[in-house]
């Protein structure tokens, strides 16, 4: 790479934030800035670019500690509003997963199942301050004699509540279609037969990892917007895979990087953590995430100016190829085309719709911008960046 003309550090940018002098734009606004002034000038002018995404992210959940009971219990089985939480950790700790379905749900035995309530909804109820029925069972030990415990709680009654999502903010995601003759019900929503519709996710040009495609500035300790509060990138997410085909702009053309994120659930709000019921598939959780990206040099200003028309993903058949586990893409498509409402695949016009909210992604990017401009949010310099290529 040729010599960079601009060079800034996290510390310099953070000093500017503390002094209220940092110049912050959203990833959408950055497109114009770079087009008008060029990458070098943009890198001099702009300190931070904010991003956002709001979509159903199944690999999410929360560690909860409900405090020791009297007499004490080693809660090996735990339910919250009749949704099972994992109790195979210490006495009164549990993990409520987003996709856990409420007990006795008919699931898909009445096909397609409605999946009205589950872990994602428990998390939403908790952050909304609603009363949740806690039920626990233990097998009884000399130190933890109680075998049963039941109580109504709100999030305030919990000793600790931390959102810990092992895989969020996927850098790119499949576009799903259905080539079969019947409607299918997938985690990408209802897909009508003979490719009558196509479903896609990610907020494209606003999406966090699309704006730092090689994770130059994102890693363990990166401070982020998470569920309405400030959280952190804890680790590379599960299935994080930087080694995929990329465009000339470095942007992956299929699912690639992911992040594991952590934050204090008690500070989060239902506006940014919303339970989801996906017909015939199950329950999930809409998660709002935003990452601020420091414009350290002109390479970062080019990265953060990426546009929907230069971001591509692959179209897969979710009736055959995808569930079989040997997916071959049917075609490649840009987010600009996906966002236009129709795409053409094999000469056929297909209606498209997203599953993640661009409107909310934009709100997140704007909120993050306000926080940083107001000096309320300092960039977290990663202790170790995510594995890259």
């Amino acid at each position: 790479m040729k010599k960079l003309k601009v060079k800034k550090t996290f510390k310099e940018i953070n000093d500017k934030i503390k002094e209220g002098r940092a110049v912050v734009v959203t990833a959408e606004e950055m497109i114009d800035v770079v087009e008008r002034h060029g990458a070098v000038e943009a890198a001099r002018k702009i300190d931070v670019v904010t991003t956002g995404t709001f979509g159903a992210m199944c690999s999410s959940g929360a560690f909860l500690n409900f405090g020791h009971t009297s007499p004490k219990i080693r809660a090996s089985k735990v339910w919250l509003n009749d949704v099972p939480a994992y109790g195979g950790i210490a006495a009164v700790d549990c993990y409520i997963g987003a996709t856990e379905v409420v007990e006795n749900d008919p699931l898909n035995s009445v096909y397609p199942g409605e999946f009205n309530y589950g872990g994602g909804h428990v998390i939403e109820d908790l952050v909304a301050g609603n009363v949740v029925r806690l039920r626990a069972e233990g097998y009884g030990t000399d130190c933890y004699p109680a075998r049963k415990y039941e109580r109504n709680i709100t999030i305030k009654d919990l000793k600790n509540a931390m959102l810990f999502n092992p895989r969020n903010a996927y850098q790119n995601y499949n576009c799903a279609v259905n080539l079969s003759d019947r409607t299918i019900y997938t985690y990408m929503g209802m897909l009508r037969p003979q490719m009558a519709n196509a479903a896609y996710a990610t907020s494209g040009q606003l999406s966090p990892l699309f704006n730092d495609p090689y994770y130059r500035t994102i890693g363990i300790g990166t401070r982020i917007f998470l569920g309405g509060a400030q959280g952190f990138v804890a680790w590379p997410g599960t299935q994080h895979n930087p080694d995929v085909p990329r465009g000339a702009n470095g942007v992956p053309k299929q699912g690639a990087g992911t992040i594991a994120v952590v934050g204090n659930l008690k500070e989060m709000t239902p506006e940014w953590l919303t339970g989801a019921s996906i017909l015939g598939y199950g329950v999930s959780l809409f998660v709002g995430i935003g990452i601020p990206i420091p414009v350290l040099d002109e390479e970062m200003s080019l990265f953060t100016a990426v546009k929907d028309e230069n971001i591509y993903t692959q179209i897969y058949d979710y009736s055959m190829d995808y569930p079989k586990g040997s997916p071959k893409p049917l075609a490649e498509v840009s987010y600009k085309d996906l966002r236009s409402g129709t795409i053409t695949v094999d000469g056929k016009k297909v209606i498209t719709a997203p599953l993640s909210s661009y409107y909310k992604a934009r709100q997140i990017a704007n909120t993050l911008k306000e926080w940083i401009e107001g000096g309320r949010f300092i960039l977290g310099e990663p202790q170790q960046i995510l594995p890259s290529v």
Partner: protein
Amino acid sequence: MYSKKIVIRYTPEIVQQPVIYELVKQYNLVFNILKARIFPRREGVIVLELSGLKENFDHGIRYLKEMGLKVEPLSKSVSQNTDKCVHCGACTSFCPTAALAFEEKSLKVLFDAEKCNGCELCVSACPVRAMEINLL
């Protein structure tokens, strides 16, 4: 030409009577049935688009009400719960009449009740159950 989508709710006593026929014969109205159901206790609901001269339309509606039927514009039976909607837009590719569509600038999902035909596809498509339809 006046045209409106309405919901007619029948009681079990009237469900056998050919009221739609009377709308055509007496009031010269054109109807297009979008949905019709009779429930186990023999009460029923019809969603239809009714078109004709405004005067005839009003007389027709009065006739239905005099028959003891409950009549309401369809737009009153379908609504978007804007507190729940997260504006993902999953509904937009299912809505056959574009009653649910993105507002171009804000990319918010807006619901135009006048365009809705009561098909209820959005109810299934919405992951946060923001579409509320009461056609019972």
